[in-house]
C-alpha cells in the first residue's frame, strides 16, 4: 500500500487531539483477534516473573503470621506514631487503584479516544491494587482476627459499628469500589471472553471461557443493553472514584492532628491518587507493549496523551503542596506552622524533599513533547512518581504524628524488617494477580479496538493515508514516532 515518506522537518509534529487517535497499523477485525489473543500463550519469562512474585508474597505472609502471633510490637511503631508503613502503603495502593477507573470510566464519558487500548490494563491494575490495599487496614489492626466487627451485621451483642467513624466509611468506600470496579472489569471482558471461547481448542479452557462468557453471542440485543449498562456503570464509577479517595483522605482530615486537619485534603488526595495511578500505568504498560509486541496498539500517541494528563495532575498536586504551606502560615496557628517548618527543615526534611522532587519538579519535564514521546524517560519518570507518591503518604502520616500538640510526646519513627517485608509481600501479591491476569485475558479490549478501526465495506476499503492534521500514514516500522 502507499507509504508516504514524511519530510524530516515536519518533526516535531503538532499534538494529536487525544480524542482522535487512530491505529493505522491495525486493519482488519481478524488481525485484532490474531494479534491480541496471541499474547496469551505463556512464556518462560512470564513463569520466572510469576515465581518471583509468589516468593515475595510468601515472605510477606510468613512475616504477617509472625506479627499476628507476637503482636504489632515487632513492627517499628513508636508511639505516638501509631500509624506507619502499613497505612502509608494502604493509601499508596488505593491511590494506584484510581487511574484504572479514571481511564476506563471518566475518559469514557469524555470520549477520550486514547483510553481504548490502555483501559483494560489500567482497570485490571485497579482491581488488583484495591485488593492489595484492602489487606492493609486489616493487617495493621491490633487484633486482625476481629476485623469483621467493622462490618454491620446482625449479631447477639446488639452492638454495631460507629457510622460516625471515617474508618467505617473507609470499609464501605473500599468494598464498594472493589465490587464496582471488578464488575466493570468483568462486564467489559465478557465480549472478549466470548471471542476467546470461540477460538479456544483446549476443551478445559474452552469450558471455563464458556462459563465466564455467560453465553455471550455478540447479538444486537446484547450489544444494545451492554453499551447502555456500560455507560451507566461508567457514570456511577466517576463519582465513586472521586468519593473513595476523598473518604480515604477523611481518615486524616477528620482528625485534629496538625498537618492532617485540612479541608484541602479530599481534592488533594484525589489528584494525588490519579497522578500515582498514571505513574503505575506507565510503569506497567511501557514494558508490556514492548514485551507483547503491541506497540502499534498502544502507540506513542497514546502515551503522549496519557503523559499530558499525568502532567496536569502533577501540577494540581504541586499546587496542593504549596497551598498547605500557605494555609499553615495564613491560619496563624502556631502549632500548624511549627509542624510545617518541621516537615521541610526539621527531622523529616529528606522525606519531604523526596516527595517534592519526585511529584512536583521532575514531572515538569513532561512539558517537553520530545520527553513525552520518549518511552524510556516516561518509564524512569514513572518509577520516580511511584517512589514520590509513597513518600507523600509517609510525609503525611509520620511527621504529623511524631510532632503533635504535646511536646513531651514528640518522637521519631523507624520501620523494622517486618514493615519492609510486608511491603514487599504486597508487591508480590499485586504482581502475582496481574501476571496471572495478562496470560488469561486480553490486556487490550478486542471489541473496543474493533470499534475504532474502519470496518470492511463492499464499496471501498477504508483509507489510512496521512491527512492535513498530521495524522498517521500507513504504519510501517520505519515511520518515526510510531514506536521507539
Amino acid at each position, binding site marked *: 500500500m502507499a507509504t508516504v515518506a514524511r519530510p524530516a522537518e515536519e518533526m516535531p509534529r503538532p499534538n494529536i487531539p487525544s480524542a482522535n487517535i487512530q491505529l493505522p497499523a491495525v486493519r482488519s*477485525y481478524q488481525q485484532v483477534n490474531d494479534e491480541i489473543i496471541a499474547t496469551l500463550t505463556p512464556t518462560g519469562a512470564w513463569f520466572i516473573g510469576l515465581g518471583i512474585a509468589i516468593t515475595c508474597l510468601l515472605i510477606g505472609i510468613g512475616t504477617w503470621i509472625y506479627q499476628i502471633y507476637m503482636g504489632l510490637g515487632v513492627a517499628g511503631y513508636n508511639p505516638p506514631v501509631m500509624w506507619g508503613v502499613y497505612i502509608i502503603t494502604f493509601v499508596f495502593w488505593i491511590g494506584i487503584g484510581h487511574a484504572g477507573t479514571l481511564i476506563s470510566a471518566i475518559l469514557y464519558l469524555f470520549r477520550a479516544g486514547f483510553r481504548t487500548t490502555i483501559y483494560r490494563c489500567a482497570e485490571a491494575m485497579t482491581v488488583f491494587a484495591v485488593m492489595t490495599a484492602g489487606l492493609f487496614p486489616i493487617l495493621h489492626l491490633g487484633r486482625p482476627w476481629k476485623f469483621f466487627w467493622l462490618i454491620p451485621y446482625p449479631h447477639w451483642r446488639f452492638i454495631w459499628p460507629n*457510622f*460516625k467513624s471515617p474508618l467505617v466509611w473507609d470499609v464501605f468506600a473500599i468494598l464498594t469500589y472493589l*465490587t464496582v470496579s471488578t464488575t466493570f472489569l468483568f462486564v467489559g471482558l465478557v465480549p472478549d471472553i466470548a471471542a476467546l471461547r470461540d477460538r479456544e481448542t483446549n476443551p478445559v479452557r474452552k469450558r471455563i471461557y464458556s462459563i465466564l462468557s455467560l453465553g455471550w453471542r455478540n447479538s444486537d440485543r446484547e450489544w444494545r443493553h451492554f453499551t447502555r449498562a456500560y455507560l451507566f456503570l461508567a457514570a456511577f464509577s466517576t*463519582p*465513586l472514584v472521586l468519593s473513595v479517595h476523598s*473518604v480515604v483522605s477523611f481518615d486524616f482530615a477528620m482528625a485534629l492532628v496538625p498537618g492532617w486537619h485540612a479541608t484541602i485534603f479530599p481534592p488533594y488526595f484525589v489528584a494525588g491518587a490519579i497522578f500515582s495511578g498514571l505513574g503505575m500505568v506507565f510503569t506497567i504498560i511501557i514494558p508490556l507493549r514492548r514485551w507483547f509486541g503491541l506497540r502499534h496498539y498502544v502507540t506513542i500517541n497514546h502515551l503522549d496523551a496519557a503523559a499530558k494528563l499525568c502532567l496536569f495532575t502533577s501540577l494540581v498536586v504541586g499546587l496542593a503542596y504549596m497551598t498547605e504551606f500557605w494555609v499553615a502560615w495564613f491560619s496563624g496557628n502556631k502549632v500548624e506552622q511549627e509542624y510545617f517548618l518541621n516537615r521541610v527543615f526539621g527531622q523529616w526534611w529528606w522525606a519531604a524533599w523526596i516527595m517534592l522532587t519526585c511529584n512536583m519538579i521532575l514531572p515538569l519535564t513532561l512539558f517537553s513533547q520530545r520527553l513525552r514521546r520518549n518511552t524510556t524517560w516516561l518509564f524512569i519518570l514513572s518509577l520516580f512518581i511511584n517512589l514520590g507518591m509513597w513518600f507523600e503518604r509517609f510525609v503525611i502520616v509520620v511527621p504529623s504524628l511524631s510532632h503533635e500538640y504535646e511536646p513531651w510526646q514528640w518522637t521519631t519513627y523507624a520501620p523494622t524488617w517486618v514493615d519492609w517485608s510486608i511491603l514487599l509481600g504486597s508487591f508480590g501479591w499485586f504482581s502475582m494477580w496481574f501476571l496471572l491476569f495478562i496470560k488469561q485475558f486480553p490486556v487490550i479490549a478486542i471489541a473496543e479496538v474493533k470499534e475504532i478501526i474502519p470496518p470492511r465495506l463492499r464499496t471501498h476499503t477504508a483509507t489510512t493515508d496521512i491527512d492535513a492534521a498530521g495524522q498517521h500514514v500507513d504504519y510501517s516500522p520505519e515511520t518515526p514516532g510510531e514506536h521507539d
Partner: protein
Amino acid sequence: MRGVLGVFRELDSAVDAITALRQAKAGSITVYTPTPRHEFEHALAHGPSVVRRFTLIGGLLGATFGYWIAIWISEYWPMVVGGKPIPSWVPYTVFGFEVMVLVGALSTVFGLFAVARLPRLMMTVGYDPRFTEGDYGIWVECPPDREAKVTEVLQQNGAVEVRRER
C-alpha cells in the same frame, strides 16, 4: 425454533440485507456483530434500552437503605461520641452515597443480565464462532415456507454463506 443464518464479510452488505428483510417482513431478526455499530441500530430501529430503570431504582433503594441503617443503628443503642448528636446526618451522607453507588451498580448489571437474557446457559441454534472475529451474521427466525425467500434475500445482499438451522 428454526430459521436461516446468513454470514456477511462487509458491514454495508449486512445493513442492506437487514433493510431488505424488514421490508420483506421475513420474521424476527437477530444480528451478530463483533463490535457494536450504529448502522445496525438504525437499521433495526429498536427502542432505547430499559437498563436505565434498574439503575434508577437500584440507586434510590441504595441511598435509602444507607441512611436508614445508619440512623436506625445509632438510635438502637444511643451512644454519644465526641459530643456529637446521636443521629447525625452529615457523616451518614458518606455512607448513604457509597451504598447508593453499590446497589445502583449491582442492579444495573442485574438489569443487563435480565434484559439481555444472560447468562445463557448453552449456545442455541443460529450462531457461528466467526461472529466474535470479523464476520457479521443475520439470523432470521421464520417458518419453513418462508425460508427460501429469506435465503434469497440474504444471498442477493452478498452473504458469503447461508445455511438453514433448526
